[in-house]
């Protein structure tokens, strides 16, 4: 369960945000909507622990991540939160499988080739096990992003504008994959987007348009 309460953040005096409270239960799937510049990415980074809030709490499975020491936060977030970034960042010197294994290594856990193959299979990347990142298409890179975000079976899956660069067909496919992966482990899914095409697909929605102060 995730509880976000009384969350404030400010970059400077003219640029501060107060975010609405939100409570997500296991397996909930939420759409976080808002115009450009309304603080979507800030909200996502706060929930992902990349930013420290000025005020407020972000409680994931009874742990307030805004209160964790940096060294604890890194591991906790690595284990509990999977993120699909808007741009697809990978370690270019590693191949597909190695990128997935690294995600597991960094939280001090072991992984077998079978686990890697399983997740690649679910995301239609079966034949890319040893492919270099540069050989993947945009769509494949996005699916690999999803694979990496779920490889540690996190409690929370965050997606930042996952569909903004996709056509309608791939947009639907990407969201279906995300939702399918989230439901496998009863993971909470938060999709942050301004993409109107996604609105009909989500029951739970949060609008951030009023967050900017």
């Amino acid at each position, binding site marked *: 369960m995730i509880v976000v309460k009384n969350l404030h953040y400010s970059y400077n005096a003219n640029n501060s945000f107060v975010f609405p409270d939100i409570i997500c239960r296991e397996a909930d799937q939420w759409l976080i909507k808002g115009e450009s510049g309304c603080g979507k990415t800030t909200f996502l*980074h706060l929930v992902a622990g990349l930013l420290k809030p000025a005020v407020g709490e972000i409680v994931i499975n009874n742990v307030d991540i805004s209160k964790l020491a940096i060294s604890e936060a*890194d*591991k906790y977030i690595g284990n509990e939160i999977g993120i699909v970034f808007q741009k697809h960042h990978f370690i270019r010197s590693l191949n597909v499988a*190695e990128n997935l294994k690294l995600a597991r290594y*960094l939280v001090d856990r072991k992984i077998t080739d079978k686990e890697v193959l399983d997740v690649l299979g679910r995301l239609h990347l079966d034949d890319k096990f040893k492919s270099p990142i540069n050989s993947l298409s945009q769509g494949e890179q996005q699916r690999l992003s999803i694979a990496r975000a779920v490889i540690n079976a996190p409690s929370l899956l965050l997606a930042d504008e996952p569909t903004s660069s996709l056509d309608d067909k791939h947009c639907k496919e990407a969201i279906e994959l995300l939702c399918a992966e989230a439901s496998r482990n009863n993971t909470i899914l938060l999709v942050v987007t301004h993409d109107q095409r996604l609105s009909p697909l989500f029951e739970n929605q949060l609008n951030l348009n009023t967050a900017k102060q």
Partner: protein
Amino acid sequence: MNILQLTWKNLRAKPLNAMLNILLVATGIFIISFVLILEKQTEQHLERNAANINLVVGAKGSPLQLILSSIYQVDYPTGNIKLSEAEQISKNPLVKKTIPLALGDNFKGFRIVGTTHDYPMIYDAKLAVGKLWKADMEVSIGAKVAMESGLKIGDKFAGVHGFMAESNDVHNESQYMVSGIYAPSNSVLDQLILTNVSSVWQIHGSHHHGTENDDAHQGEHDEDHDEHCAQHDHNEHQHDDTDAEAADKEITALLVFYRNPMAAVTLPRQINQNTNMQAASPVIEMNRLYSLMGIGIESANLIAYLIMLISAFSIFISLYNSMKERKYELALIRVLGGRKRTVFSLVLLEGLTISFVGFITGYLLSICASFFISIYSESNFHYGFNNYTNLGTNLILLGMSLLIGFTASVIPAIKSMRTNLSKTLDE
């Protein structure tokens, strides 16, 4: 997948950059290490062979040449001295012991030295088989001579005139016989053929006048012949009235051991001023040689340290640039659960790996190079190099390389550790 593998793959992803940096470190280490090996080996050979010889007396000429020719058996002798004059020195009360050396011939490039049984004793040489030379034309040969020439006890061979194996002036008429073979003594003795002085006289006495005119037409060899061969200048002395035979005889050099330190003050001056011989001190001449070599060694080292400095800069620039290119990747590692120190050590390890591989490469290069130099000097001077490695020095060089890797990578490492994740990933 662990951090070391990741470091390795990151380096392999930019092979040219990595290779350049490794090459720079390796070149620095190679020069330093190679110069050290050369220096050490030369010093070892020189010291071992100097064997407490206090003074060398020989014909006038370059003192360094006299030392090199009579102690290290590398250069040509300066000429000959009269046995009668040399004997005067032996009788001097300041002198404890003298050893005569009569050079002139070689066998397959190994010098044949006419001397006394005292000579092998100064190198603590022990016979492996057979016995010391006793009668004329008997020889005891060094370990290396036996190994390379295949001579065995009882074998006979003819000496070749001069110090070059290629000379065609072979003393076929009188042959030496091997009576003993020395165990390796790790000194100049290993490459010598020892016999008594009178054998050398005998050879040159018997052939001398018959071949001299032929020699005169042989260019360079001719000079060696007249200058270096014992007992050549018969004509000059044949009218000496007393002890004509002894006065006639010549040796190449006399090794002198002092009875007390006072001798060092007076004896060399006495000889240099009052006789037409010269006295050279091995210590003084070798120090002169070292100081000449020292300039070369110092400039080589200077170049090496300069290259190491450049390599540090090069590693720094490479890492700094690649940190900029890879800041997303490093931020990603943090987001995926990597700690700050994981990112820090990842960058640091890249620098250290480059310098470590560079060290290993340079070290192996220096071993190969000294191996080839050893073969070269073995065939040219019969001086080989033995143990190439010196653990202590290598550890210092390793430490130095790692320090360079560390210094070059610590700033990029700190910088990437401090990256603002949210900002980097949002860019």
